[in-house]
């Protein structure tokens, strides 16, 4: 702080608190809605403070689900699917990116730069712009309605490969030299030296990619038709669009809370890794 101006400081706090309230308000209302019964949530104006039905609502959506037809599935199942998908995408991206970055940095081989550029170009081809043909490829490979179909097409990662490449380039050459003098094989060097050194980079990437995997929407929407593979984010959105005669806002909002809780908790408890990952993957 350069000088002391109490008025400006108070104004700053005021703006920040106002910002926090606006940002937190949608989630607060969602939480409130998830603690009332159905009848209360159908009368406008809806209450602004939590009610007594928290356990009933969450219990019902977790174990039974609600609604009609194919959407009537217990939310715990969709949470498990989302967890499998998020972990699969995060770990898969990290695994294949770290080994390809290792190959590109620590070896000289024909077509090395070709591979590098091929990986780079994936940045320019997000799923959203090539939806129909990608769906076709996955369908031809018989990967619809499977965990491999949910995970594998998403795990190529230019950003993760770059991040590991950047990190490996900053590792002192003496380490590789020493490993070679001692007769260690490349894989030995990778497993015993590089991998432990990459811990913080891996943690940062994991947080970002876990959120990315958990929050996938279009992809699971396209390739799953069996309820047993539905993820929680797509189920929430689908439920919201069901035009029921009597909408169950309380249950829908309990589901929405459950859908955002895991990634939000990851961000809150791993905030340092999160910020690091966010800033570094964009370089």
């Amino acid at each position, binding site marked *: 702080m350069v000088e002391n101006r109490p008025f400006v400081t108070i104004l700053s706090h005021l703006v920040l608190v106002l910002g926090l309230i606006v*940002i937190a308000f949608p989630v607060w209302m969602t939480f409130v809605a998830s603690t009332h019964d159905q009848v209360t949530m159908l009368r406008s104006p809806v209450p602004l403070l939590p009610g007594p039905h928290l356990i009933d609502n969450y219990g019902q959506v977790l174990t039974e689900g609600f609604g009609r037809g194919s959407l009537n599935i217990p939310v715990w199942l969709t949470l498990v699917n989302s967890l499998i998908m998020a972990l699969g995408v995060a770990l898969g991206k990290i695994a294949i990116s770290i080994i390809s970055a290792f190959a590109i940095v620590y070896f000289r081989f024909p077509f090395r730069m070709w591979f590098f550029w091929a990986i780079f170009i994936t940045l320019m081809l997000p799923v959203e712009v*090539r939806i129909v043909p990608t769906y076709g490829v996955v369908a031809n490979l018989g990967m619809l309605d499977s965990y491999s179909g949910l995970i594998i097409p998403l795990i190529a990662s230019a950003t993760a490969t770059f991040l590991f490449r950047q990190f490996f380039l900053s590792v002192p050459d003496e380490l590789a030299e020493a490993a070679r003098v001692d007769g260690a094989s490349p894989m030995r060097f990778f497993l015993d030296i590089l991998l432990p050194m990459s811990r913080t980079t891996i943690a940062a990437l994991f947080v970002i990619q876990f959120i990315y995997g958990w929050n996938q929407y279009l992809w699971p929407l396209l390739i799953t038709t069996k309820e047993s593979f539905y993820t929680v984010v797509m189920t929430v959105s689908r439920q919201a669009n069901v035009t029921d005669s009597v909408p169950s806002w309380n249950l829908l909002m309990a589901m929405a809370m459950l859908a955002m809780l895991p990634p939000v908790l990851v961000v809150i408890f791993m905030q340092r890794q999160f910020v690091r990952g966010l800033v570094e993957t964009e370089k």
Partner: protein
Amino acid sequence: MEKRVTFNERTLPYLLVAPQIIITLVFFFWPSGQAIWQSVLIEDAFGGNTKFVWFDNFLHLFADASYWASARLTLVFSALVASIGLAVSLLLAVMADRVIRGATAYKAFLVWPYAVAPAVAGVLWGFLFNPSVGIVAWLLQGIGIEFNYVLNGNQALLLIVFAAVWNQVSYNFLFFLAGLQSIPRSLIEAAAIDGAGPGRRFWDIVFPLLSPTGFFLLVINILYAFFGTFGVVDALTKGGPGQSTSILVYKVYNDGFRGQDLGGSAAQSVILMIIVILLTVVQFRFIERRVHY
């Protein structure tokens, strides 16, 4: 930059890049190639015959008023998302940079919306503005504004802008805050000694020094508005009412899966790819320049 020390192996490096390259080829290059190929074909409705038609699909698209409407809409939408998002997050970042007490707490409470899926963000905002039970819609009605995003196209657009901005604010905030904290204190102090007040210091020193971050965020926000907001639109409005929130990515999906217009959807895909490539090139050119600052 290259490593001086490398290992000599013939097959190992190929095995190491293989998983990444195979996935890239099968799930990125192959479908993209197909999109380009399909964009010059016409397939009849029964999937039997395909005909090579040169650029007919593109000409057809450019003659289609609804495509231009969607393109215009996407421009308006991304301009709104980027300008509101950047302005709000810059304001919050400047304030968070000023305060000493509670700075980390503010930061902790501002970063988590990033973790909420766009589709879920859409559901939350839809609930707040729901015409029959939404609390904000009720308040607006109290002051005489009839808010019904299910019927009113402009209000629907406004609502997806709000949801998209809300989802992206934490990202912008973190980058602006990092940018602000990297500005040397001595510059600000020197200006203060010369008698410049907080407003003057912001516009003459902080703002110009922050412009690289701002420009980078502008590109990222446009990319986000173009391609990252599919979930928001699908959860909130499904492109409606009418076509009033059918942005380009939504139209590709809708024409391809709902309308079964493969050639037209593929032509749209190709145009979107060109847009992403241009934006990515701009982003990287700029980052290269930023390194030399």
